[in-house]
């Protein structure tokens, strides 16, 4: 937990006092909300807010908040509090997907094509990267696939390549949320069993071929 100090006037607040207001705010958020934003609204130190959020998370998972690992005396809730894309948001628990999906018909996006998945993977691991950079790895033109990913909010433009002037792309916070990741560094390492791949970058840079 980070030790970002709150403003001088803030007093330490107990997680129990923060739980109610935090739950109330979490009911109206439309995207993951950071502990920092919550702390500002609640006028409480960020560290206290983070502790309270973690306690809520444990609470919904069926544990009591006192920190002992075997104290599962509560009931596991039908929802969970998750830390994704740098923020906190409430989700229905995945085991109830069959019943929940009967009520949430909209917004369930269709599966990505193989071409889109591969392009997304290259952007995720090579960002920021130009379309030409992705093409080079996939061996095909990726213009329309990148456009699809942009429209679906998984990838976005982020400036130009200084040498060529071509647009570069990176993944979005929505991409992290859809994957259930807090941070891009949580992506699994790419093919650690293929040492050749790591060396490729050197080969690329040296241009000796």
């Amino acid at each position: 937990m980070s030790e970002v100090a709150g403003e001088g006037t803030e007093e330490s607040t107990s997680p129990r006092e923060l739980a109610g207001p935090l739950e109330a705010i979490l009911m109206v958020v439309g995207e993951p909300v950071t502990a920092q934003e919550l702390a500002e609204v609640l006028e409480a130190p960020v560290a206290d807010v983070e502790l309270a959020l973690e306690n809520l998370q444990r609470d919904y998972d069926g544990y009591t908040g006192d920190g002992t690992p075997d104290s599962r005396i509560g009931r596991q809730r039908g929802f969970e509090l998750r830390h994704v894309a740098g923020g906190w948001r409430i989700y229905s628990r995945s085991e109830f997907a069959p019943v929940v999906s009967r009520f949430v018909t909209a917004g369930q996006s269709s599966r990505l094509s193989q071409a889109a998945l591969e392009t997304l993977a290259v952007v995720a691991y090579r960002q920021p990267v130009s379309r030409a950079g992705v093409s080079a790895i996939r061996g095909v033109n990726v213009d329309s696939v990148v456009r699809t990913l942009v429209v679906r909010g998984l990838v976005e433009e982020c400036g130009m390549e200084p040498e060529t002037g071509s647009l570069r792309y990176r993944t979005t916070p929505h991409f992290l949320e859809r994957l259930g990741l807090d941070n891009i560094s949580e992506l699994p390492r790419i093919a650690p069993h293929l040492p050749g791949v790591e060396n490729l970058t050197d080969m690329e840079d040296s241009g000796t071929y």
Partner: protein
Amino acid sequence: MESPPLESATGFNVQLENFTGPFDLLLGLISKHELDITEIALAQVTDEFIAYIRAAGESGGEWALDEASEFLVVAATLLDLKAARLLPSGQVEDEEDVALLEARDLLFARLLQYKAFKEVAANLDERLTDESARFPRDVPLEAQFTALLPKLLWKTDAAALAALATKALEPREAVATDVGLDHLHGSTVSVRDEAENLRALLAGGHPHSFRELTADASEILVVVARFLALLEMFRDAVVSFDQVSPLGELTVRWIARDHDWDGSRVREEYDDALPVGGLP
């Protein structure tokens, strides 16, 4: 080059949409034969790769130049390796062999890199599927809270809105397509320059075979550049092609009615020098 035995009849399905690119196809062929990438049985896989491209072409699919070019780069490399019978155990004898070894290593390296990303893509797919079982709370804001939002300063009139819509709905300018050749760099070869060289060789003279036209090429990528240049020239009806048997000798004949044609006509997308033999 000899005609390939029609080994595609062994049941390999020719359907372009099954593959997302030349590496995907190559990986598919390699795994079909349960081969290790690094010990790839070049002869057999090369024949099937070429047969596949041919069948895909014949089945009426229209390939964009930039789409076909990557397949051609891979095919050219495979063919060269096969022609030289440069299998991994081959003896290195001269500079040409060294160049081929480098080309082979480059192809394998790119193939391994692609394979790694393909695996990651499968992992992303799995995660996306798992995560789609969770639904985020995303409900309309209660009226009591929307009423608290700062009053909107509204300065847009109907005409301004119409102007915005016109701009947004206008067809976009076609985005210049990226030809996926940036991965190749090193000494520079320009398709435009090669087109100009070919014009000097061909214009008004005898037909030449593709083999003759590329005999002095120092690297595979020069061959590819000349091939791309020829495709451009063919498109402009400057040259004609004649090929008696599949994969047989390709004869190039100058037929330009446009006497002003020169290398500068080659499309802008080749403005950047075609880089030779590198990786991204």
